[in-house]
């Protein structure tokens, strides 16, 4: 292609027609839901999360109405308990986290000048899982069967089936399902940020939103799996009577609290950082200058991510742990204020250095910072252990957490809503309604939550459905209720503003005069994402790169065409975003929806104890997922294609250069973390009980060591298979893969034989229960290993994996590394630790 080829308007129109055809959306009334384009899936995701937020808000209003006066009987205790449990759970799991994922699915490809995320079908799967799980959990309140144990579901109240009903199972299984979809989104976003940046966008040029998303997605990988591990133990206890939290049989309720809060505290930052990330985008725009202190923001994001994993026990200051343990966490809780403060001061410095345009989004941003600072300061207070002994589990904490979440999540999202609405719809929202809503929200939030600081210290515990008149809390509570209604009116004004949007005229492109890539989006919707993938040389290319917008629009950068009629995007290297390959993206398909339905079926049917149906659904899910995988890593019709400017990129990559390899790596990192959660349980019981493991309870070392040897052999066979495959010996590869599968299956038998021969009955004591759980976890992974090896064999036989196109074999090897890690820890612990201890 010559340098001036793009000067020809006819050529450009032909390219646009081909792009439009490749990115043609499905339009049938049913098939439209099979769409995978991030523009559509992201918007569905946002709207669904917003609807769930409104629903959870209504629940809160009912609660505040009940608490308006002392000794009220508007709703009974049972309903009230369902209300607050569902309010908290929905705001956390169905609004805050999914909303961040949703916004990122909409924005990230635009921010990175990519056509779409690397795994569009995975986004769609995440969305449908979220919808199914969310409706399942929230719908339960209409059947008076909603969870009622509080959003952290402390056992034994929630594990004893005589004290809690179906609601607990709905919470555990419904939300576990959603956690799985969150991990899926994290995989998508990490790979997106690391591998799908435009050429030239080195790490130091990445939009700060992308930095935050990378950090938060990595946090999800390490924060959610411990909760999934906890959920597994929890449901084993509820459904099968395996005693993990039942003190009478050797369990300990505190194990749940550890696992929950190892998730729960990073969770706070998981929902706070992406909202702050929106500030990092809009504050430079409305200061009309670069963000001041870019490395400081990166420091803050990364530093917060680390420190946030050292805070979990500050939710357990009253549990009677040794004071020294509490003190470590108190210290870390103080330390985490530092990076949080740094990012706030970076924003202040940017505003100070720039020419401030006080727009509606900026109004929301400054207002939320003010609210957040109050929440942060009370956060420092509750990090002080003696003060927390008074404030813990009272309305003081309710006030604190709502200041943090309203100032750190909800209001920033409204700021983002007013800022990015033109990006998605091409229209601005009303400044007048927006500002009216803002002041209503500010007044409402403060009137609701400020008095709660006092009512908490004056003796009002949280989660009470009523309070006696004699406590003298009537006035404070009435004020809070009035504030809640004021806040609701504010939200209503925003909803009205959104509803009026279709009647308004479109505005010009990039209406705020922003400098970052996402504002290349045209008011008129085109599904291809970006006309040509630009070469990035600065942090604010629209401001700083000459003729940037025109060159993008005229297709003068990379990949301006879709010659083969395929959806494509560019893969680049991690540090310096050097172009590595062009990958073909997934197209609209029923597979993600089917996968969501069948995987969801496993969780939902288990809730109702329909185990055989759940097993059936699981087998279907496995089938759908394998079918889905079968479509990936296809061998292209030609090895390379030109993307403009004389650059020719391969159409197939394998190993660490490939997004698929990273997806496996990241998923397995999450999997290994969940496993660590289970293993933590084993050693936790060792620390709390002097007779754990019970002397001579078994299993003897023989079988666990045999299982380990078999797994190691299977691992070895796979590695050799990869190497001989690379050298072209396909036949030997197939033999080795089959051998590996056989060894994996044998390791299952050996693994189960240990606890079986020792006659450990998991329903009678905690030791047996945790041994069986670890063994089952590991053999299930061996089963997946066998399936993966057989899949590789099938791909080879079908000609979809060849020595020059060996992504499958490489990914299977990667899985085997993690498999070996799990097996080593499990089998050595089960076989040898009883001897050591």
């Amino acid at each position, binding site marked *: 292609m010559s340098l001036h080829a793009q000067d020809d308007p006819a050529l450009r129109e032909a390219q646009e027609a081909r792009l439009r055809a490749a990115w043609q959306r499905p339009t049938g009334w049913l098939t439209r839901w099979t769409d995978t384009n991030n523009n559509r899936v992201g918007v569905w995701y946002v709207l669904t999360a917003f609807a769930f937020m409104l629903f959870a808000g209504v629940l809160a209003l009912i609660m505040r109405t009940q608490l308006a006066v002392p000794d009220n009987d508007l709703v009974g205790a049972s309903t009230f308990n369902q209300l607050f449990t569902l309010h908290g759970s929905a705001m956390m799991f169905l609004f805050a986290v999914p909303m961040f994922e949703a916004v990122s699915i909409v924005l990230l490809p635009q921010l990175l000048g990519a056509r779409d995320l690397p795994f569009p079908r995975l986004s769609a799967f995440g969305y449908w899982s979220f919808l199914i799980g969310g409706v399942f959990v929230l719908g339960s309140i209409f059947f008076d069967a909603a969870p009622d144990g509080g959003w952290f579901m402390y056992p034994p109240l929630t594990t004893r089936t005589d004290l809690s009903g179906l609601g607990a199972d709905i919470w555990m299984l419904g939300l576990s399902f959603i956690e799985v979809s969150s991990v899926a989104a994290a995989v998508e976003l990490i790979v997106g940020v690391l591998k799908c940046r435009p050429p030239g966008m080195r790490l130091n040029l990445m939009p700060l939103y992308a930095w935050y998303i990378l950090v938060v997605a990595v946090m999800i990988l390490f924060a959610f799996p411990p909760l999934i591990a906890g959920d597994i133990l929890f449901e084993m206890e509820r459904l099968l009577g395996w005693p993990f939290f039942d003190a009478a049989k050797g369990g300990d309720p505190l194990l749940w609290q550890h696992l929950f809060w190892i998730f729960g505290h990073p969770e706070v930052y998981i929902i706070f950082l992406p909202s702050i990330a929106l500030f990092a985008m809009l504050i430079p725009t409305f200061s009309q200058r670069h963000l001041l202190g870019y490395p400081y923001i990166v420091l803050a994001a990364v530093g917060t991510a680390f420190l946030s994993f050292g805070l979990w026990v500050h939710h357990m200051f009253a549990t009677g742990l040794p004071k020294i343990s509490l003190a470590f966490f108190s210290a870390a809780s103080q330390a985490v204020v530092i990076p949080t403060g740094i990012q706030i001061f970076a924003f202040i410095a940017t505003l100070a250095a720039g020419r401030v345009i006080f727009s509606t989004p900026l109004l929301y941003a400054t207002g939320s910072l003010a609210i957040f600072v109050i929440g942060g300061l009370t956060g420092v207070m509750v990090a002080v252990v003696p003060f927390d002994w*008074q404030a813990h589990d009272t309305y003081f904490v309710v006030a604190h957490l709502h200041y943090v979440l309203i100032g750190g999540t909800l209001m920033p999202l409204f700021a983002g809503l007013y800022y990015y609405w033109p990006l998605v719809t091409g229209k601005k929202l009303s400044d007048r309604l927006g500002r009216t809503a803002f002041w209503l929200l500010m007044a409402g939030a403060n009137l609701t939550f400020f008095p709660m600081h006092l009512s908490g210290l*004056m003796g009002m515990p949280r989660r009470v459905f009523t309070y006696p008149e004699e406590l003298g809390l009537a006035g404070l509570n009435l004020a809070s209720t009035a504030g809640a209604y004021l806040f609701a009116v504010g939200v209503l004004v925003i909803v009205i503003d959104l509803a009026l949007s279709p009647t308004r005229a479109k505005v010009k492109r990039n209406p705020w005069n922003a400098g970052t890539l996402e504002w290349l989006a045209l008011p008129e919707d085109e599904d291809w994402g970006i006309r040509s993938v630009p070469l990035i040389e600065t942090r604010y290319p629209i401001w700083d790169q000459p003729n940037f917008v025109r060159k993008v629009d005229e297709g003068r950068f990379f990949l301006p065409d879709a010659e083969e009629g395929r959806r494509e995007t560019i893969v680049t290297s991690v540090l310096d975003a050097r172009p590595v390959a062009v990958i073909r993206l997934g197209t609209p398909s029923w597979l993600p929806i089917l996968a969501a339905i069948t995987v969801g079926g496993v969780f939902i049917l288990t809730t109702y104890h329909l185990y055989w149906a759940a097993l059936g659904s699981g087998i279907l899910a496995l089938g759908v997922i394998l079918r889905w995988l079968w479509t990936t890593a296809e061998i292209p019709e030609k090895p390379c294609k030109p993307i403009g400017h004389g650059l020719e990129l391969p159409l197939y990559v394998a190993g660490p250069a490939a997004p698929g390899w990273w997806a496996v790596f990241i998923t397995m990192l999450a999997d290994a973390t969940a496993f660590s959660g289970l293993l933590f349980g084993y050693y936790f019981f060792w620390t709390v009980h002097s007779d754990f493991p019970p002397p001579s309870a078994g299993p003897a070392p023989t079988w666990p060591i045999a299982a380990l040897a078999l797994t190691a052999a299977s691992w070895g066979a796979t590695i050799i298979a990869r190497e001989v495959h690379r050298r072209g010996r396909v036949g030997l590869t197939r033999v080795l893969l089959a051998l590996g599968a056989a060894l994996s299956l044998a390791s299952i038998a050996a693994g189960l034989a240990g606890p079986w021969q020792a006659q450990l009955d998991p329903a009678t004591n905690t030791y047996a229960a945790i041994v069986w759980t670890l063994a089952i976890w590991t053999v299930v992974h061996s089963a997946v290993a066998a399936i993966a090896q057989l899949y590789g064999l099938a791909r080879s036989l079908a000609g979809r994996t060849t020595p020059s196109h060996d992504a499958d074999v490489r990914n299977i090897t990667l899985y085997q590394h993690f498999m070996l890690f799990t097996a080593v820890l499990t089998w050595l612990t089960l076989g040898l630790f009883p001897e050591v201890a």
Partner: protein
Amino acid sequence: MRVRPGTIVKGLCGTALLFLSGCNRHQSALSPFGDDAARIQVMTVVLVAGAVVIGIAVAALMVWAVRLPANRLTLVGGERFILIAGGIVPSAVLLALLIYSLPAMRPRDVSPGDLNVAVTGEQFWWRVRYEPPGATPLTDANEIRIPVGRTVRLRLLGGDVIHSFWIPGLAGKVDMIPGRENTLVVRATRPGVFRGQCTEFCGLSHALMAFDVVAMPPEAFDAWLAGQQAAPARAAAPGQALFAQHGCGGCHTIRGTEHAGTIGPDLTRMGARRSLGAGTLPPSEANIASFIRHPEHHKPGVRMPAFPHMPEREAMAIARYLKALR
């Protein structure tokens, strides 16, 4: 100058009064009657004052930042501002705060001669057992008496589910966890009647799980304890037979009678209690009778079975009998 905590409480209550509210003085961390709560109250004042100063400073900086004309703050100046205001100053303040708060975490020392009181959280009431050194233990429920000026060691035990023991005026809260024993060492500083409440969500009637705390002059406490340990003489009453006839003794103990159930609260001192149903109702005879027939109306999820078919007259007789127990 040292600010007296009392002044602060008045100030805070004054603010609260703006919300047309009376300040309670019997279940409030802002109205301490124990050493630990008083110490934490001082800490609260320090923390609030610091938070107010910092909050105002940040707000002022934000206003300054928005108003400052463009390009007056250079890149170097801005980064130095972030480093100092966002990094160095907070680090120093927080380190000071940490050093200030750590010694306050040390628990009070106990000696073997101190009174132990074991309290167990049950759905939705409190099992109380006084364990004076060298004397027979005494079981009671839903009321805790402590001697002023003496160190008392509270042994907090988990019953059915997790509860949390909180007497805001006396000290911070400590959880009661099944399978674990926690300790809270306290010392009351002035006599009076106060209130405590469960603060860990524990089921349907979590909101209705409170108890009375009576801080007594030490001599009065000793006399009371000694009086209780002597076996009380029980005169026959019409309600007593009905109490037996309806099987109440299967769950409740009344010392000095054959009733020795341990599932529900000990009723030996029922007539002397200041509330009914763990701080739920005033202890009138009518309320007691109503509670016997329909406990779930007053306390959702209560473990006590209902006696809806018991004639009102009989329930009243039992109530009169219980009201006479002291």
